[in-house]
């Protein structure tokens, strides 16, 4: 337990010491949301700005996945470089390092996401749907993004490879969900990808199902369930890969 706390504190400290990370992962999505508000015609419904609402849900979820970059950065730096010899020589299991680092990075991304939710709700009239559903989706996605980053790091030996993979899935989710460059086509596959084919589409639609925009609580719970299953599968995969590597 002591080891876990030491590692958790260490990565938390490093995440927040580097000002670029918090700024980039908080200000950039807010900037994109503001840009969307300015660029769109005002579309108010029930007192909420729908342009800002659409952009906010997508940015919140997309940047949760980008937040995995922080974990990836520290993981590759510490466990693929020379530092790994000193860390692995310590009486600490690889699992403790992974859990400590993942949780520290998760807390960071949750705080970053909360700032986006609070700022957009207070200043941009953004509608965040049912608070319980939104909170569940947000927490599940933030854990999933950290697990995805951890898996990427465990499977990569080079920093450049790991970064490339993470950018591919982050942008891939945005493109396939149809939120970055619009719909890729009107067929069964594309429709599936845009509605349930990626964690991003499941998450942002789940938030909108929970309120007056898409208004279907059953669909919201289905999306939450799929996201939860994906997260559990990812957690098992991380555990298996970590065990197979024998060390971090």
């Amino acid at each position: 337990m002591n080891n876990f706390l030491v590692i958790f504190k260490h990565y938390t400290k490093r995440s927040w010491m580097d000002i670029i990370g918090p700024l980039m992962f908080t200000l950039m999505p807010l900037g994109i949301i503001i840009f969307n508000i300015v660029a769109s015609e005002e579309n108010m419904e029930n007192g909420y700005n729908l342009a800002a609402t659409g952009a906010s849900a997508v940015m919140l979820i997309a940047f949760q996945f980008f937040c995995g970059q922080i974990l990836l950065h520290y993981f590759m730096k510490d466990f693929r470089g020379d530092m790994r010899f000193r860390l692995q020589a310590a009486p600490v299991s690889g699992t403790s390092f992974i859990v400590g680092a993942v949780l520290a990075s998760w807390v960071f991304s949750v705080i970053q996401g909360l700032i986006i939710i609070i700022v957009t709700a207070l200043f941009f009239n953004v509608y965040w749907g049912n608070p319980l559903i939104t909170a569940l989706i947000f927490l599940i996605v933030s854990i999933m993004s950290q697990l995805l980053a951890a898996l990427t790091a465990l499977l990569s030996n080079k920093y450049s490879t790991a970064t490339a993979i993470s950018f591919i899935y982050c942008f891939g989710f945005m493109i396939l969900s149809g939120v970055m460059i619009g719909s890729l086509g009107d067929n069964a596959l594309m429709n599936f990808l845009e509605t349930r084919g990626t964690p991003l589409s499941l998450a942002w639609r789940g938030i909108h199902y929970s309120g007056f925009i898409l208004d279907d609580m059953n669909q919201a719970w289905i999306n939450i369930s799929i996201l939860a299953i994906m997260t559990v599968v990812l957690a098992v995969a991380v555990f298996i890969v970590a065990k197979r590597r024998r060390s971090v």
Partner: protein
Amino acid sequence: MLATLNNLVKRYNDTTALDHLNLNVYEGEILGLLGPNGAGKTTAIRALCGLINADSGEITVFGQRQNIKNLSVRRNIGLVTQEITVFKELTAEANLRYFGGLYGLKGVELTANVKEVLEFVGLSEHAKRKPGAFSGGMQRRLNIACALVHRPKLVIMDEPTVGIDPQSRNHILESVKRIAQRGTTVIYTSHYMEEVQAISDRIAIVDSGRVIVEGTLEKLVSLIQHEHAVYLTAVMPSKALEEDLKAIAGVKSVKQNGADYTIVSGANSGNVNRIMEVAVRHGGVKSFSEAKANLEDVFLTLTGKKLRDDGKVS
């Protein structure tokens, strides 16, 4: 016996890094591991620290079998890595607190150990500074401190002086001696002969994945030294002096060149004082020196290779 590496074999694809390596480490000693780059020193150290498993053979440390799953044995080992492995974004003190914490230290004990180790490596004044702003020598000292903060019984130093200035090197060598004086066992690997010669109680020469010889410097030198030469310059050179020198027990030959004499004896003949007495009786000596074999001669003789300063052989 503190640690034993018994018949270790480690292969990486077609390369044999350790080829039935055997080594004993005794409590309280400074064991110098000398060998060129690629000799297997670092692989042996990693196996000893439990960072890698050997393909075959056995490692025992503090009476326990060492392998990558044995975490408890690591609590008493400190590894000084070849590269500087400190967090440049954290202060020197924060680095030490983190590494101490990983070894289970906390509270008052952690604070006391951090303070002590900073003093030990001469970085107390720089505790709140980040190592990114340190000189190379200071970074090396912090690198060593990070391995000492939990007061290990065994410190393993893998080429800790690579790429630093002579002053910092001397500081580190003095530190190694002081670590050993506290009762800590030290394994010191280097390809710098003079370092190993200066600080080691025992030396093991590693080449091609195996220990080819181990022992004290005197023992290693005696393995290769079959003759012993004394050079003297006489105040009053004479044929009689030459004849008297030849008559000394153990002397094999005497060569005279003006006032200079070269006297060659068998190894361990112990006749240096007698040679001096004879020379003084014949009018005294202007200068006197002995030719002693050193570690470089031992290495060259036993491996057939000359070890260069960059760790490569020629």
